[in-house]
């Protein structure tokens, strides 16, 4: 018996039909999903690992895993969130292998408030884009986010750069909503503090 469509039922995401077709062996449907999300997956992997070659490998591995495990995709979450979850796991595994960071887990100790307490209380100049050229600005943004612990970097990337909701971020990372919020706050405050060095208003007589 077909389900009765009740008014106000949420719109079905177009990915649902594509995933269904891909499961039945429709290569074109899977390819369309790859096209839709390859840039996002690459960005996520690059932000977490901070390494382009790793990000390339992770992007390929993520889609290959998704292809192999398509049957296991439950449809309780968005397909994109499921993909991001695979990419995050692959990225953290890669970091652990490289061991460039002493803590590479989403459960790393976040009890310390170090760096998260605001100290710089200068307003910023309005348009960073007008102070620095695009290359300089990207360089500043990259270096600044690199300095965050991987767990914070990952939450900030998903929530603020990729615009996932708090709930989707929690799902992709296997964290609770309060844990995401707490990491997000610290990530934002630490980035703010570091960027203040470049973007703060200068009083007259101060070197630029």
């Amino acid at each position, binding site marked *: 018996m077909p389900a009765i469509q009740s008014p106000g039922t949420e719109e079905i995401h177009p990915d649902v039909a594509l995933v269904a077709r891909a499961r039945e062996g429709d*290569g074109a449907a*899977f*390819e369309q999903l*790859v*096209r839709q999300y*390859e*840039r996002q997956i*690459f*960005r996520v992997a*690059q*932000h977490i690992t901070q390494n382009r070659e790793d*990000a*390339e490998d992770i*992007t*390929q591995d993520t*889609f*290959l895993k998704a*292809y*192999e495990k398509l049957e296991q995709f439950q449809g309780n979450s968005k397909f994109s969130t499921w993909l991001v979850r695979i990419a995050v796991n692959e990225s953290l595994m890669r970091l652990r292998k490289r061991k460039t960071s002493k803590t590479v887990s989403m459960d790393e100790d976040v009890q310390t408030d170090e760096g998260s307490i*605001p100290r710089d*209380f*200068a*307003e*910023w100049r309005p348009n*960073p*884009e007008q102070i620095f050229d*695009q290359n300089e*600005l*990207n360089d500043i*943004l*990259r270096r600044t*986010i690199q300095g965050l612990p991987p767990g914070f970097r990952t939450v*900030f990337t998903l929530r*603020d*750069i990729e*615009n996932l909701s*708090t709930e989707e971020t929690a799902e992709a990372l296997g964290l609770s909503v309060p844990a995401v*919020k707490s990491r*997000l*706050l610290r990530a*934002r*405050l630490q*980035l*703010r503090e570091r*960027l*203040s060095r470049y*973007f703060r208003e200068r009083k007259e007589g101060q070197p630029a």
Partner: protein
Amino acid sequence: MNCTDFLSQLTDYFDGQISPELLEEVRGHLSGCKHCEIVLNTTRQTIEVYRGNEVYEISDELRERLHTAIMTKCYEKKGA
């Protein structure tokens, strides 16, 4: 509401997920605390500057190369 309480509400404030009563308290604190007003403004600017600039651009060439590699691997898997 003191500065620490204010900070603890910052994420919900940005998300618009704050009860009217708390919002009232947050606004009250902001009207009398220049430091927190600046932290609010510059945190918002932090988010905006990352959203507005693609820090890791992916060139068309890299994207095509990745795309081909992904599809090749998947087809190999299918054929295996």
